[in-house]
């Protein structure tokens, strides 16, 4: 499976098998549903925002190892960030996936393992699904919450 090691690193399989922050929050500030129309992957994302920080991140849904592990890694990477930091990090991750930037391990944490996905255009959408949901949730919160 040599050629696939880029795509399926041990860390990815680990997050896939043991998803961090899977489930629902008791008291979400905002919740969004996103799906990838091309493959059927779905995510339900909930955020609890306290004092401008992502105090809680929870996700559920269905999808492949890439979208599931990415959601898990995203939930860890964004937890406890301010909204602006989170938006920045989403943008950084998006640029990494498009091959426009090198991954910043310090900020991305385990999600750096997804860097290899950039070589597989079809799978990039899987990796981005949860991150785009997070961006949408924050922007939704802002437009609603003022």
């Amino acid at each position, binding site marked *: *499976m040599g*050629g*696939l090691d880029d*795509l*399926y690193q041990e860390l990815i*399989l680990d997050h896939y098998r043991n998803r961090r922050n899977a489930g629902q929050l008791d008291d979400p500030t905002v919740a969004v549903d996103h799906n990838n129309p*091309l*493959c*059927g*992957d*779905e995510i339900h994302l909930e955020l609890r925002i306290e004092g401008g920080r992502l105090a809680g991140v929870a996700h559920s849904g*269905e*999808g*492949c*190892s*890439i979208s*599931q592990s990415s959601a898990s890694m995203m939930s860890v990477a964004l937890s406890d960030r301010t909204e602006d930091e989170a938006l920045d990090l989403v943008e950084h991750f998006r640029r990494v996936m498009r091959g426009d930037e090198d991954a910043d391990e310090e900020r991305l944490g385990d999600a750096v393992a997804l860097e290899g996905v950039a070589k*597989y255009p079809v*799978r990039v959408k*899987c990796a981005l699904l949860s991150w785009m949901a997070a961006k949408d949730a924050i922007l939704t919160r802002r437009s609603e919450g003022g």
Partner: protein
Amino acid sequence: MGTSMSPTTSIDAAAVRRDFPVLSRTVHGKPLVYLDSAATSQKPEPVLAAMDAYYRETNANVHRGVYTMAAEATERFEAGRTAVARLVGAPREGTILTKNASEAINLVAWAWGVRELKAGDEILVTEMEHHSNIVPWQLVAELTDAVVRFAPVTPDGELDLEGLRGMVGPRTRMVALVHVSNVLGTINPVAEVAAIAHEAGALVLADAAQSVPHMPVDFGELGVDFLAFTGHKMLGPTGIGVLVGRPEILGSMRPFLGGGEMIRDVRKEGSSWNDLPWKFEAGTPPIAESVGLGAAVEYLEGVGMDAVRTHEREMARHLVDALSEVPDLTIYGPTDPDRRGAAVSFSLPGVHPHDLAQHLDQDGIAVRAGHHCAKPLMRVLGVPATARASAYLYNDAQDVEALLAAIGRARAYFS
């Protein structure tokens, strides 16, 4: 499962394969095993040669030109139509060239539906339709306040004929159903459905995108009013599809797309229409594509559609048998090869179809993963996506063996 084909198959798959240049390529260093013909077929040499020759020898716009090259181009273009009409036993004047099967269905939905449907009228489709046989009806229903209803699929992936019968009534204006499901492989009893629909005064459209390429299909025998299919799934090029319609009905319909070619006269106050089939062909048609499709039809006729079907029945058997060996794997649709085509969807717990397809690709094997443009069916099956292996006349038992071995490796990887 052996490496040689069953004796009931009169196709020499090895010889056929040599006609398809792409099949000799490698992927990740492995020979390509192409098991995605339900998405699109590969093209044999004569199809590529016919299109190339058209452009090199006699490319010109058709129908209106007096000069030699235009007459030659028109002849080659119309010969494609003639070949397609012959293949499905359709009248030439009822054989309309579109850009794909989707446009063919939209043509009926827009040209007939927008004008004929009234509030409360019903269009009956089935739960196993491809989006191309759902969304056009939804769009037109939205404009006309008609209603789109879905005839049920049984738990084992067949059309619930009694359920459908119960849904056909005086408000039913159109029954539109897939002939062979691109997900389940199920062969639907179109002639029976047509009889039920006609008795209720409804029209019938069969989406034959997955049947015309793979088995003998006769427009008259099916008894439908419209038949839609697509060139790229039947060894032909992209950019061309076919709508066959009963000429009486086509003749009474208003045109769909307006433009050159489809008119008799254009005046400021209004226009009148060309004869069938050109009335429904606006603008420069897919000329080279018709030439290519004609060559594809000739290739299929050379092999023989009976032989194609026999071969694919065997391939369906191989696929179902092989996949049944995999523990916990679920096959969707009929397991009896007599009741299905050679597109076989399945799922494997713990391995998402996307991950499976990615792993198989690493072994050179091309299968499709996703909703296969049949989201309502996915919801009925209770899965977000499936993997699908689909065979055609160039596949053989060895392809199935390669698939089986690679599935085993993927399973091990994710467990």
